[in-house]
């Protein structure tokens, strides 16, 4: 019996369709995952509300209203949590479960895979920034957004953290990636000048503003204050290039 059902007709889908497929699939999986949502939305929300309350209670004061300083920092935190921690953990388990191996023999090039991943991250980040911005406004945030600067900060911040996240996921085992990605996230949250401005760290501020976390935090604060943060954006671009090169060099697919 022949029906011709399986008659060979090989061929790759057009590149844009592949990238779209990969991006939709990855975004859907990211949003379906409970822990990832906690990291993406719930923790930044708690940090925002908690920090605004705590700043008032402990008399922490900045040049600008507290919520105007903290909200852009929390937006930066949200970008970091998705582009670095979520991506690293997800990719670590993709390696472990042979997903990357499987996709390696599908007609999907590595650059299309990467483009799909980045697009998925941007989708999730837009949702995060939407929710957190509304929360900030509710708390009294009145930003003066430099749209170009903000977009550049989100894109370059995503590139820098995604490169570092992939470097982590491509070189360590899945469990080690999970632990390291969370640990680094917590350390940068506390001491990386993401939520709090670099100036709040005293002398250390001169150092931490060169970290990807500090550069992203400072860039978001400047962009939400109507400035184009050229130096910080250049620092993020530098991390993206260095991290990307290292990931390209050392990433192991299996």
């Amino acid at each position: 019996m022949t029906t011709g059902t399986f008659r060979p007709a090989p061929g790759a889908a057009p590149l844009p369709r592949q990238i779209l497929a990969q991006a939709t699939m990855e975004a859907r999986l990211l949003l379906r995952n409970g822990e990832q949502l906690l990291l993406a939305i719930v923790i930044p929300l708690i940090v925002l509300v908690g920090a605004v309350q705590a700043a008032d209670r402990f008399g922490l004061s900045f040049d600008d209203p507290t919520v105007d300083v903290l909200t852009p920092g929390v937006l930066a935190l949200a970008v970091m949590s998705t582009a670095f921690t979520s991506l690293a953990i997800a990719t670590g388990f993709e390696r472990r479960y042979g997903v990357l191996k499987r996709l390696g023999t599908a007609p999907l090039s590595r650059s299309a895979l990467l483009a799909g991943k980045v697009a998925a991250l941007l989708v999730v980040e837009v949702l995060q920034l939407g929710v957190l911005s509304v929360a900030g406004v509710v708390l009294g945030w009145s930003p003066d957004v430099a749209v170009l600067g903000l977009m550049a900060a989100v894109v370059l911040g995503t590139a820098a953290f995604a490169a570092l996240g992939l470097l982590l996921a491509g070189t360590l085992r899945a469990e080690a990636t999970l632990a390291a990605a969370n640990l680094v996230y917590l350390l940068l949250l506390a001491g990386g000048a993401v939520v709090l401005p670099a100036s709040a760290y005293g002398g250390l501020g001169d150092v931490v503003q060169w970290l990807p976390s500090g550069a992203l935090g400072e860039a978001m604060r400047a962009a939400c204050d109507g400035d184009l943060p050229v130096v910080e954006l250049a620092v993020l671009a530098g991390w993206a290039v260095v991290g990307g090169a290292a990931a390209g060099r050392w990433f192991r697919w299996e």
Partner: protein
Amino acid sequence: MRYGDKTAVDGLSLAVATGTITAVLGPNGAGKTTTLETCEGYRRPQGGSVRVFGLDPIRDRRALMPRIGVMLQSGGAWSGARAEEMLHHLARLHAHPIDTGLLMERLALHECGRTPYRRLSGGQQQRLGLAMAIVGRPELVFVDEPTAGLDPQIRRSVWELLEELRTDGVTVVLTTHYLEEAERLADKVHILDRGRLVASGSPLELTRGGTVATIRLVVTQPFPAGAPESLAAALGPTTELTVLDDVSLQVSGPADQSTLATVSRWCEEQGVLPEALTLGQRNLEDVFLELTGREGSS
């Protein structure tokens, strides 16, 4: 191919004809998966060359990958992805995919389409792996242990599917350690052992070995001293005699009456009483055992 100082596949040379099913058979650790993964571009050979459709699996991967389908031995899906979602995703990466609903039905996966991958049974995961390998309408599929651990009914439906692929012009290369699978499906069987090719041929060629028949004799008391040697002399150089233990032996030789007559005459001369005397054509299991000296499972 070597892993550390262990040589997994060595001096292997084989070719596959289009539109056929080729089985790579061998005990665990024989190098079956390593061989396949070298063809799939996952591993770079330390020596020699691999060409698939004349393409180098690593250098020409962009041109090759759309043309081949790969079923991994395990894994290959996001643990949180639903079965139908996973298959649909693979389909979307190809230009002319097979209808995923049809494929799910053919592989009895339609009832677990909405189940996340991590909650599928081992057999369901395996069938989804096969579906993912063929959804893109490849010319050539590599399937690694396609029916390991499946229940007999589902195993048969997988066999039928593989045969239908061949009928439709797809070339299938499969690894297996099930002898009956190779015997039933394959046009050509390559037997690997410790990374080396030990035999190649159609199941018929391998089991016939010319017109060889095997006689197995078990006697009630241990053979008298020198008796097996005298049988060997009586049978002549066209047959091969193997003493299995002190009460049994095996004779492989031309499938004619004189071999059997010689054996029974010898029993009379030596005064030994046969307890069992079996005569049979070899099956793939005998060939496999002879070549690898190990038990296969069937």
